[in-house]
Each structure stands twice: as C-alpha cells, then as structure tokens.
C-alpha cells in the first residue's frame, strides 16, 4: 500500500462528487389534480382536454352506477346471495376516469376490483357478480368487451397484458393493452418482470396502478419506501402520479399516456393515488388495522361528491340530471338483485366442460364415471 500523498484529499473529493452525481435532488412533485375536493378547477377549463358537459356528466353517471352496483353487491353478500364481494368504494374516479379514455379496441386486464371499468367496457354487471356468487370462475367473454377475466392471483395478469401488447405490436395495431393493479401487486415479481418485458420490447401497454393505500391490512409503506410512480423510471419508461379521486385528472392523464403509447413511445405507468374506503372484501374487518380518522380524511375527498359539486356549481348539470341518474342507479340495483336471486346453479357435470380445448382421455373417462354415478340415484333399474 502506498503512503497517502498530497493528491489523496482531492481524490476523495472527486469520488464524493462522482457519487453525488447519482443522487436524485428532484423535489417530489404534486400529484396531477384538475378538480379540487371542493369542486373547483385547478386550471382554466380551456386547458383541460375534453372538458365539457358531455364528458363530465358521463363520468359522474358512470361513477354513480359503479357505486350503486357496489352497494347492491355488498348487500347481496350480507344476505348470503354472494359468497364474497371486493368493494370498489372510493376508487370510482380512478376506474371510471381511466376507462373513459380507452378506445373500444384497447384491451383491459383487470385485477378483481375493477367493477367500474367493467361497467364502462359494457360487461353486464350481472356477469361480474356471477364469479362472486360462485356459479363460474369466469363470467363473460373477454373478446367482445375488450375486458379480460378477473385475475385473483395478484399481479399475474400484468404479464398477460404485456404479452398481449407485444402481440398487438407484432400485428401493427395501435391499440393498447391496459393492466389495472394495486399497490400490493406492485411488490409481486410478475409485475417487475412485466415492466422489464414491456420496456425492452417497447410494448404498447399502460400500467395503471390504483394505489388505494392498503393491501388488506398492510399499508403501502409495507410495499414501498419510495413513491410508486417513480418505479417506472428505473425500468426506462415514464411514470406519473395523479389524484386518483379526481375523475377529470385521471381521464386527462390516462388520455395523455395512451397518446404517448399509441405514438410508439412504449409503456407508461400511471399511479392513481386513491383510497379504499371499504373493506378489502366482505370477509375483511378494516377496523382491526385502520384508524377511523384516516377514513374520515379521505371521505372528505370523495370522488363523486367533488364532481357533483362541480357539475352543480357550474350549471353543467341540472337537478333533473341527478334525479335521472338516481333512477337509473335504482333500476340497475333492482336488475342485479333480481338476476342474482334467480341465478341457477350450474349443472354438476359442467366442471368437466372446457378443461381442454381438444379433449383429454382421462377427463372424458372421469366425466363418464361421474355421470353414471349421478344417474345411479335416479335409475329405477339399479337396486
């Protein structure tokens, strides 16, 4: 080892400078917000893409319908008609705002709480509750709606969205695949792998993370020590945070992200900063882990209340609009309730249907034996 020289001190400084060059000195930006909780705009309306009576009424109407479905399904679970329900309460703006920015040929890969997105994609709410009644593991044909089946293995579908986007790109389509997932899913390896595949393939995929602050009982601080939107930068694509309770901002940011992707810009990450006002599912009890004051704080930022306040204050919607929306919501609730209560159980031998596309000798044999066994209860020839 050589003795320290006069250059030693300046060498150390140079090393410190070299290391400091990697430090991130950027101030943390505010989430993008267009509509304040009190219903006032943060920007002049002419600077807000799509701003107008038509969009704002549609956003409000669909958020109201999603909330009604959620309320009804929660009630149906409490009455024993559904086995389980994961409520979306509080996340209406994140879902409806983003879904309204999509094109019909875009393809959504939801998690299991995206009932509002399903509604916007034209999936019949009755089909959505079928899964939770326990009559199917699917519920609808994703090819018609561009809305894939729910995925209950957290984060697994984010890879499917990425692969689907790779497929779209190979066909020269400018449609986009959209993966909805949560702050809990952001810790899953599949989500990190999806980011990697999407980035290196420049895949046309939008990663839409609803950070609702809670993964069952674990606060987002158990998932990450830095803001989630920043994760995108490490993978080489843009990430932004939007006020997830502001439907107008979510819509504008999603539209921006989709334009970026359609223009060949590759993947984009949107973190919709929102709050799960309800339980994780109807089997959960958030009072065991969540301070009531936190819920009250977020209740003051209710996504429906702020858009309603804006529509009323600006005169973009008359009282008749709200009355009609309430009527439609009530009709939806009645329709879902009636459909659920008259929904038949599937035929037992149906479990053998569609295990394979091209059949399977052992499954066929098991089906024959099962049907024979079932018949034995009613066959008068048998003792």
């Amino acid at each position, binding site marked *: 080892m050589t003795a320290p020289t006069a250059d030693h001190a300046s060498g150390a400084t140079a090393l410190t400078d070299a290391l400091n060059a990697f430090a991130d000195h950027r101030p943390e930006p505010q989430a993008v917000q267009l509509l304040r909780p009190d219903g006032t705009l943060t920007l002049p309306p002419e600077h807000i893409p799509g701003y107008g009576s038509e969009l704002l009424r549609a956003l409000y109407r669909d958020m109201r319908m999603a909330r009604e479905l959620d309320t009804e399904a929660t009630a149906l679970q409490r009455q024993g008609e559904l086995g389980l329900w994961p409520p979306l309460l509080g996340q209406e703006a994140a879902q409806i705002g983003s879904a309204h920015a999509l094109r019909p040929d875009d393809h959504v*890969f939801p998690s299991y709480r995206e009932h509002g997105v399903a509604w916007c994609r034209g999936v019949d709410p009755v089909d959505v509750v079928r899964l939770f009644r326990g009559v*199917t*593991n*699917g519920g609808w*044909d*994703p*090819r018609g709606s561009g809305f*894939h*089946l729910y*995925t209950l*293995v957290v984060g*697994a*579908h*984010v*890879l*499917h*969205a*990425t*692969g*689907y*986007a*790779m*497929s*779209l790109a*190979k*066909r020269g389509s400018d449609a986009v*695949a959209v993966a909805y997932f949560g702050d809990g899913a952001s810790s899953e*390896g*599949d989500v990190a*792998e*999806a980011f*990697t*595949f999407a980035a*290196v393939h420049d895949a046309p995929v939008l990663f839409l993370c609803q950070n609702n602050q809670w993964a069952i009982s674990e606060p987002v601080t158990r998932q990450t020590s830095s803001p989630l939107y920043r994760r995108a930068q490490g993978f080489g694509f843009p990430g932004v945070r939007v006020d997830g309770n502001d439907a107008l901002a979510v819509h504008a940011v999603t539209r921006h992200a989709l334009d970026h992707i359609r223009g060949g810009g590759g993947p984009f990450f949107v973190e919709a900063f929102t709050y799960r006002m309800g339980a994780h599912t109807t089997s959960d009890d958030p009072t065991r882990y969540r301070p009531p004051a936190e819920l009250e704080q977020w209740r003051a930022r209710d996504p429906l209340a702020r858009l309603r306040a804006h529509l009323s204050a600006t005169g973009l919607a008359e009282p008749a609009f709200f009355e009609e929306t309430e009527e439609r919501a009530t009709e939806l609730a009645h329709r879902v309730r009636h459909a659920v209560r008259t929904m038949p159980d599937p035929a037992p031998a149906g479990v053998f*249907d*569609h*295990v*394979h*596309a*091209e059949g*399977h*000798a*052992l*499954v066929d044999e098991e089906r024959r034996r099962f049907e024979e066994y079932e018949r034995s209860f009613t066959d008068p020839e048998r003792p």
Partner: protein
Amino acid sequence: MPAQTMTLAKALNLSLRTALEDDPDVLVMGEDVGRLGGVFRVTDGLQKDFGEDRVMDSPLAESGIVGTAVGLALGGHRPVVEIQFDGFVFPAYDQIVTQLAKLHARSGGALRMPVVVRIPYGGGIGAVEHHSESPEALFAHVPGLKVVSPATPSDAYWMLGQAVRSDDPVIFFEPKRRYWDTGEVDPGATPPPLHRARVVRAGTDLTLAGYGPTVKLCREAAEAAAEDGRSVEVLDLRSLSPVDFDTVQASVERTHRLVVVHEAPVFFGAGAEIAARITTRCFYALEAPVLRVGGHHTPYPPARLEGHYLPDLDRVLAAVDDSLAY
C-alpha cells in the same frame, strides 16, 4: 423432404423451423434462443432466418416468459417458449398452473391457450445442481395441461409439431441426455396421435414402460433379458397427460407383469399413478404387483453420484427379476 438421419436436437430444430414456416402466428421465445440458438442449439439458426420479431431472446425471467406467452396467445399468437433447464421452471410454475392451465376452462371455452413450454429435463450429462431434474409429475398432476416427452428423433420432430398445432397448453419435456442420439426422421410419414403410447419392442413375459430418457434404457434391458431367455415388451408412453392406459392395459393383459421406469423420484411419481390405474384395470391379469424403478426421494445428487441415483441397466434388470419371481 426425404427421410434423413439426424440428432434429436436437430429434429426439434427442424420441427420448429417447419412450424415457423407453416404458420405466421408461431413465435419462439426464451433465454438465449436467438443469436446463440439455445444452450443446446435446439433453436440454432431460427432467428437468422425468421427474424427477431418471431424468434425472441427474452429477459432472464421465467415467469415473464410464460406470463407474456399467455398474453401473446390471447392476442392470437402461438408461442413456443423454452425454459433453459428443468430446475429453472419453478419461477414460471405459478403462471403455468394458475393461469395457463385454467384460462380455457375459466372462460367457458372462449379463450384458447395454444402455448408450448419446452423443457430440457433429466440427468446423465454430469451437470451442476438444478440442471438434471425430472419434474414432469408436478405438471401431469395439474388439470388443464397436457404433458408429453419424446424419446426418439422421429417423435421429437412429430410430437413438437403436433404440440404447436394443439389449441391446448402442452408441457414438452425434452430428454436432454438424448439430444445427441441419432435416428431417422421422415417428414413424409404419417405420425401417430400425440397422446398415443407405442410398443417399441414386442414381448410376452413382462412389460417395461418408460418415456423420454428411459425408453432407450428399457430397450437395452429388454435385449439383456432376452439373452437370459426372457421376452420383455417395451412401451414408450410418449404422453403423461393423458396417459394412454388402453395401450398399457393391452400390453399387460398379454404379459401379466409391468415395471415402470423413470428418472424422477418414485415417491408420488408418474409410476405411482400408472401402477394404481393398471392394478384397477388389470387386477385379474396381473401375476405380480406393478413395480417402479426411478430416482430416490432425495435431492438430485452431485454429478459424481448421479450414476447411483438414476435407474440403470442393473436396477431395471433387478426389477424384472423381482417381478418374475412373484
């Protein structure tokens, strides 16, 4: 194309080449499958001829490989993905078991999953840890998957082509120690169905059933037994999900004895299911319990000990003796 003699690896390569030529939706994806042509050269030259868009070097992420293949299949493509070694499939196990295997059923038949997952498997090449495993039973146990393993260059060629054309997900286990074995491949022939077992040597005293790497071993055992005056029939099962039990049953009804040979641990292995089903089907025809020869219930050993772990000629012949002694 006339019949040619080639290695099993080359037969797989030719099969992939044919599939890529025949169907523009077929894609090949995996680690090092592009420029390098795969660590076993099974995909040699394919990227050069079909381009990076169809023969893709993937990030080093097995769950990502299978998970994006699911998405590619939803988009109408037919991905053939490679897991580089048997022991590396487990990060992808969740995607295979909870997603790939179930989507057709979950969607009520609306969504098809024409995905082939190729896995070089088995020991005998002196490899390091996690490079010699036989996890086939872990996949055959999963409803919704089909599991096959060729033993010869001809079957490698035909079965891979059939797997690619199948609308069901197929886990395609390639016996890596047989990659360099040669045999005739006749692209003009008519192949048997993908899930049909085959009698590769007729016999009357006992049936030896193997698949993938152990078929050759079973043939050698049958030849050795013949020198002792014993007529041993050899079956190549070819498919593990489904197993062609009709062919096995017909053989056992002729020979009255069955020994199943695989490299995977015997405990809860494919041989156990075959023993149970054949005992049920052939209870009055059997002269001896169905016996099994395979790996121990231990982690796969270091390479210098694999000769003591893998079934070999002596262990198979000992099982033949045991069966005939009943």
